[in-house]
Structures are given as structure tokens and as C-alpha cells.
């Protein structure tokens, strides 16, 4: 009986060990979001993606992430995204001081110029390589929000972190995924929560 009990305990121990190992294999990907239940997202036809705020050391991080985000959003076919040159024209014409964080009034003026139904603003908080000992991998952390033009309120927000050092990177020194691939994955995760 004691022997049988030991075997059962051993099974549980191995299972727990395996679960622990599998959990350690993954990176610390996170995704949080808010989806306004009152909002009819089907009414949003045209969107402007404003320049993202860059809180990283990588100079081009915000522009790269914004470009991937705008192209990915357009490629869903659900909405039309105006080109970045048109967004720049709108920003100049509306006199927006901080395009990464426009006021409600500025958004109203901007929408008048560009004829958009909503604007998306965003922040890139982490972009690039992270190191832990000899291991390194790429990581991105970003947040976006959609502001509906008519009411001037935020109807959707999402933030995601993708990449980082996994157990495989620690064991084999793989170096993680390329930065562009991590970015596309993070953007896809975020967009999945817009079209849920």
C-alpha cells in the first residue's frame, strides 16, 4: 500500500515538474484590453492611426510599430485606414500640438479635415533586445486606444507585451525571434481584441 502510494505521488510529482517546465518554456506574453459594450464598431469605417509615442531608446520604434499596425489593420479589410501622409496633413491643418495625445477638440478638427470616424493613438513602451545573463531576446510592449470622433470618448484600448527570454533561449542561446516578427505578433494580438 505504501509502495503504491509512493508511485502515485511520484506520478503527481512528475506531472507537476512537467507542467512547471512547460510554463517556464513560454515567454511572459501579456494582453489586456477594454471593449466598450455600448459602441457599435461596425459604424467605424475610416480610421486614422496617429503617430505613436515612443518611450523606448530605439529612435524609430514608434514609427515602425505604427506602420505595422496601420498596415495590419487595413489588411483585415474591416476598416479603411488613411495613409500616413494624409494623417500628417490633417495634423498640420488641425494644428495638433502633440499628435500622440490629441485633445478632444483637436480630434474634432482633425476629423473635419480627414473625414475619419475614429482615431487610434498608441504608445510603445518597450522595443528591442533584453538580456539576462548570457541569454538575449527581443521584446515589445505597446498600448493602443481608439477614440470615436463624434463623442470624443475612448471606445477600445489594448496593451500587449510579446517576446522576451524563454527557457529555450536560456538553455540554447537561440536569441529569440526577430524584432519585426515579434512586432507583427503583438499587433495581431491587439487587433484580435478589436474584432472580437
Amino acid at each position, binding site marked *: 500500500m505504501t509502495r503504491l502510494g509512493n508511485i502515485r505521488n511520484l506520478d503527481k510529482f512528475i506531472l507537476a515538474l512537467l507542467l512547471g517546465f512547460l510554463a517556464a518554456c513560454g515567454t511572459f506574453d501579456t494582453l489586456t484590453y477594454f471593449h466598450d459594450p455600448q459602441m457599435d464598431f461596425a459604424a467605424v469605417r475610416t480610421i486614422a492611426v496617429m503617430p505613436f509615442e515612443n518611450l523606448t531608446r530605439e529612435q524609430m520604434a514608434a514609427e515602425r510599430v505604427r506602420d505595422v499596425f496601420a498596415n495590419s489593420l*487595413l489588411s483585415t479589410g474591416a476598416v479603411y485606414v488613411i495613409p500616413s501622409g494624409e494623417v500628417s496633413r490633417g495634423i498640420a491643418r488641425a494644428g495638433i500640438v502633440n499628435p500622440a495625445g490629441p485633445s478632444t477638440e483637436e480630434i474634432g478638427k482633425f476629423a473635419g479635415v480627414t473625414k475619419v470616424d475614429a482615431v487610434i493613438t498608441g504608445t510603445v513602451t518597450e522595443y528591442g533586445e533584453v538580456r539576462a545573463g548570457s541569454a538575449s531576446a527581443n521584446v515589445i510592449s505597446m498600448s493602443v486606444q481608439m477614440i470615436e470622433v463624434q463623442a470624443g470618448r475612448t471606445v477600445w484600448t489594448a496593451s500587449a507585451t510579446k517576446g522576451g527570454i524563454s527557457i529555450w533561449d536560456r538553455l540554447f542561446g537561440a536569441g529569440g525571434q526577430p524584432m519585426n516578427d515579434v512586432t507583427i505578433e503583438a499587433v495581431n494580438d491587439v487587433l484580435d481584441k478589436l474584432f472580437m
Partner: protein
Amino acid sequence: MMFLTNFSCKPISILFALLICLSGCSATNNQAISVVDDHPATEKKLLVAVLPLTNLSGTSVPLGDIRQRLITSFKKQGLDILADNVLEGFILKQRIRYVGGIDEITARDFKYETGADAVLITSVELYSDVPPPKIALTCRLVSTGNRPEILWIDGVGLAGDDSIGILQLSLIEDPQKVLEKAVRQLSTSLGEYLASKSYSMDSQREILKFWPKVFYRSPILEPDWTYNVAVVPFFNLSERRFAGEIIALNFVKQLTTQKNFSVIEPGIIRNLLLRMRIIMDDGISLADASALFSKSDADLIVAGKIFDYQDYQGTGGKPKVDFSALAIERYSREVVWTVQSHNEGDHGVFFFDWGKLNTAHTMASEMVASALETLAE
């Protein structure tokens, strides 16, 4: 026992030797190139003005030497070359300062003042004489007269270690040899085009390897329609000087070889942008596009951003290209196509540098060709 051990090791040693041989044979840019000189001359010899070369490499380049080699090589393909003194006289008289393209007025004057049938516009995109040497050139032949058109365009990106062969016997360390090879490839391509009036499609193209990561194509694009396309310089966010012009030139090259597109000479578009004082701060706006549509017969405007365009010197490194492009359509004034593409030269390379690309030009060509598959589908 000893005999058995030796016997079992024999297949392994043969396999090992084979692998070493194969690694020596690795062709990193293994496009089989057949170079043919002295093509039969076409019915009427074209009189071509070979314009001074444009240096887009950002480094010092022997432009005069490359130009002379091109002239010699193109003469063998049956082209008459406009005398240098006549060309210089025309350039001085017309005060031509930009030789990376040709506008309508200059094209007309070329025809009626010098008698040239076409001009050859050449851009040097890369020149490195650090062993193994590397070079990238793009040439295009543009007709003169009232309606300048791109008759032929091709580019070449070569590195001395593209195909090193067994024991590196085919490694080229002399920059002159790489340059000569590049010039011969271009003149062969022109000769083939003049003989058949069509582009030979590269059957070895790796479409899937360089397939864009994100793309969108509007259903309003007609697959059977022939679109006039204006390619504007890309917004350069990379550290490489002239990367915007280089990638735009790559788009011109790949679009010209496609059946559904007729590309407007970039010199005409440049002239229009200057005349209308269009400055693109962050890509093209719809107002800029409307202005361009009103002054040209373009149906599509292709623009974009380039984030990375990296070449490397020597042996250790890999090229890197990252761009996004979009097309705005004339009638809807909407973005009807976008693409996002990024790649590195060693993508999909696991053993002995098999399949590695050594120049950003070659990789960008493959990436742009794959990207345009999504537009032309």
C-alpha cells in the same frame, strides 16, 4: 574488430567528404548566368546617349570607369553610342544637373538636338572594393522624343563570394572582375531584350521565401486592366543615404517587367513633384496624390517608407531590407494596396551559407517582386 570498425566508419567518412565538397560548391546567389556577347544587331541601330552615372551608394565610386565599360559592352550589343563631346555640349547647353532621370522637355530636346533615340540612365547603388568586392547597378533605357518611355530596365547585385566553388576556387577578390561581370550581365540582358522585346522571367525566383509579411489588396483593382503607375521616392527612415531612391528604382524595375503595369519614367514624376512643390513629410497625402493625378496620366501612385536598407563590407554580415509600400488609385482616391516586407540575407539558410544573399539589391529585388505578386494577382 579493427577491420569492422574501419568498415563502419567508411560510409561516414565518405558522407563527411561529400558534405565538405558540397559546402565548397555552395552558391550563395546561385543564379546560373549565361553571358552572351555580340548579339545580332537589330534592324535599325539605336543611337543611345549614355548619361553620366548617378552615385546612390554614398561612397566613392569610379563612375567614369564604369561608364566606359558600359559603353564598350553596349556597343557590342549593336547600339550606337552618342559621342561624348555632343553629349557634353547638350548637357552644358541645357544646364542639366540631374542625370538620375529624364523629363519630357529634356527628352524632346535630346531627340531633336542630338538625334539620340534613347538615353541610358545608370545608378550605382553599391560599390565596395573590400574583399570580397560587391557592386550593385541599375540601368534603364528611356526613349527620347515627345513621350519618353522606359524601353528596358534591369539591375544587378554581385559579390565576389556569391559562388565560391570547391575550396573557394571561384572566389573573386578583384573588384574589376566583379564589375566586368556585372556590366556583362547588364549588356546581355539588354541584348536579349532588344532581340525579343520581352523580359525573360526568372524561373528560379523564390516567391515564398520573400513573401510579404502583411499585405492588403482592394477588390476594386481589376486584374485585366493595364495601369499606368507613377512611383514616387520612398520616405527614407533608414540610416542609408538614398535608400528611398534605391527602393523606388527597384519598384520601377519590377513593375516594368509585369504585364499589367506601364511605369511612367521617374524623371517625369520628379519634375512634376518639383514643379508642384510637393514635399512629402511622412509619405504621400491624398492632396499630393490628387495634384499628381491631375498633371499626369497615372492610374496608380506607388509610395512607401523604407526602414532598413543595409549592405555590409567584407565577409561577416548579412544584408537587411525592411520597407512598406502602398498604392493610391486615381478614381477612388483610396489606398488600394499596401504591403509590409522585411528580410535578412541569411533567411532560410541553415548549412554552409547555401542560399545566402550577399547584397541588399538582390534581396530587395526578390522582396519587391514577391510584393508585386500580391498587387498583380
